């Protein structure tokens, strides 16, 4: 097992280098402390919202119209009359959330009873509900002139979640942090290429996959420890785990593997450690469009398509969903996507590495 020997060498080179080790393990900690502790930021621009109007009254219709006029909200077409249809679209990913106006809405308004609305959203995007609830309550209460005020109930599996912001930011920050493995993995390969160590190893009877596996291997413990740090610090900062922690770990592990795979590709292509910095040209935009920091709901369709084709948004979506209570079956497609990408990336890395072994 030649890859094991190469892997052992790389493992020792990393773990005996305090600066590199400090960076690799200190980074997740710093990321979580900085971002999650500062969590709770707002968003700009309108949020697309779907509505289910079960009351189908003049008042409910006017209420919907009024919501549509609010700057922060953009009403999606059509306005549903059946809750089941909206639920289906939500589960199929066609919409992110909907506001349910129940039958009896007009009567409750006219008789000055408490009006209960429901804001139902997918588990992977709880921030939307958190942001919209106060807006709808304020605007709705003023428009309807109801006392006691309008009450918007957030409906999602995350009802037990204590700090919605942390639950939104944590998975994104963890995925972003794991994306940085791209740069680190690429830098280590490129550094060995620059120093001539790879050329020396290329004169030995080792195959391309021995190198790809050998350079990936040391990152597996880094990946496991990083993920544990993310989860541990996240929970200390108020992360609520409603779903299965093991599933969340699996998602982070897979996106970490994808990042290492991309790092292997970049490391195969660049000639020096400084050139490996080029991976940030990929990392930063990917983080932006993959829902790591903010929801992608309002991004143009083309960008959403690009993000959807890549693995990262599947990791952020699936990890948010599973932490907020989604079942394994709800994230299975995301997992397939991540596994597929990991296989493709490592296979590509091996092909590219083979090409670089002989100039």
């Amino acid at each position, binding site marked *: 097992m*030649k890859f094991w*020997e*190469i892997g*052992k*060498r790389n493992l*020792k*080179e990393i773990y*005996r*280098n305090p600066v590199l080790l400090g960076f690799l393990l200190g980074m997740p900690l710093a990321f979580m402390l900085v971002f999650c502790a500062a969590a709770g930021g707002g968003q700009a621009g309108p949020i697309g919202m779907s509505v289910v109007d079960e009351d189908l009254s003049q008042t409910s219709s006017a209420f919907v119209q009024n919501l549509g006029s609010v700057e922060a909200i953009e009403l999606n077409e059509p306005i549903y009359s059946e809750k089941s249809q909206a639920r289906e679209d939500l589960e199929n990913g066609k919409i992110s959330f909907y506001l349910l106006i129940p039958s009896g809405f007009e009567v409750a308004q006219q008789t000055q009873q408490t009006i209960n609305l429901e804001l139902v959203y997918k588990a992977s995007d709880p921030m939307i509900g958190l942001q919209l609830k106060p807006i709808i309550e304020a605007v709705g209460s003023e428009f309807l002139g109801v006392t006691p005020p309008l009450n918007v109930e957030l409906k999602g599996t995350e009802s037990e979640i204590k700090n919605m912001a942390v639950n939104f930011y944590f998975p994104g920050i963890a995925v972003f942090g794991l994306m940085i493995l791209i740069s680190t993995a690429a830098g280590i390969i490129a550094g060995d290429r620059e*120093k*001539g*160590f790879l*050329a*020396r*190893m*290329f*004169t*030995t*009877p*080792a*195959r391309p996959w*021995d190198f790809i596996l050998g350079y990936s291997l040391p990152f597996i413990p880094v990946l496991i420890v990083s993920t544990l740090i993310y989860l541990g610090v996240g929970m200390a900062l108020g992360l609520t785990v409603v779903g299965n922690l093991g599933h969340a770990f699996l998602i982070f592990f897979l996106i970490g593997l994808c990042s290492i795979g991309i790092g292997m590709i970049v490391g195969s292509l660049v000639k020096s450690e400084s050139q490996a910095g080029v991976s940030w040209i990929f990392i930063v935009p990917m983080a932006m469009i993959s829902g790591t920091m903010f929801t992608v709901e309002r991004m143009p369709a083309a960008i959403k398509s690009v993000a959807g084709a890549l693995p990262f948004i599947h990791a952020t979506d699936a990890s948010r969903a599973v932490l907020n209570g989604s079942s394994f079956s709800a994230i299975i497609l995301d997992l397939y996507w991540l596994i597929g990408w990991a296989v493709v990336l490592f296979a590509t890395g091996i092909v590219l590495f083979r090409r670089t*072994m*002989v*100039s």
Partner: protein
Amino acid sequence: MNAVQTFKLTKEFDGLVAVNGVDLEINKGELFSLLGPNGAGKTTTIRMLCCLLKPTRGTASILGHDVVRVPFAVKKLIGVSPQDTILSERLNCWENLALIGKVHGLSSDEVKGRSEELLETMGLMERAKDQVRKFSGGMKRRLSIAMALVSDPQVLFLDEPTLGLDPQARRNVWEHIAGLKGKKTILLTTHYMEEADYLSDRIGIIDEGRVVALGTSQELKTNLLEMRSMVVSTENLTAEVLEDLRAKYSRLEMAKGRLKIYHKDLDFKGIVDYLHSQGVTVYSAALEQPTLEDVFIQITGKKLRD
């Protein structure tokens, strides 16, 4: 079968010919040195023989295995100590040797046995457990050669094995390389004349990608040097005598009472007798032994290379 054979081996980089139709035959057990100025094509040749560079034209074989068609088979047979001392800096000697040995398919016991032997031979046993980043240049170079040897290769490539070492460390490395003579086929590149002279069975002088001279050190010195030289320490040399000598011999140099005369068939006794006959005081006179450097400069010229 030759241990190493090249067939019109050629490498071009963007139209620049680095190695130009090199034909070499190196016998089993021979220590062959490729000598040449900077950029002559020594390292490029070695890189092609080690399967790191694909020849533009021509090919080469190591113990009958073609470097282009069956590189994996070639890599099993060779050991390489690259020009820059390339080690895993945070690994100790044992670990560096184990890495190369095991990638060559040696068992743990084999690696241990070979490593012990090599560390003793190379004088590294005392520091064997230290991370090699703390080593001196000479120690690193010795470890690099040990790494090239740990798999017990049949053909050893040593690319500038003493580059940048102080004289003591250089002598030490030479002794180790000399100890391998006859046991391994060794192809060594260097631009240190005395290194090639001291170590080599045969020398190939390479310049601008071509092998321009080939033979033993003695053959090169005797066959290729067009002129011999003698040095005479004198007093009261007259202008007439100098003019007369200049007319008879190819080149004269005069500095601080030392007259140096160059000529193809130098008549030592005739010159001394002539000086005496002209009343010139001769304190001493000696024929100069040609050096490999004389051969090298004569063949490759004095033009600076990059």
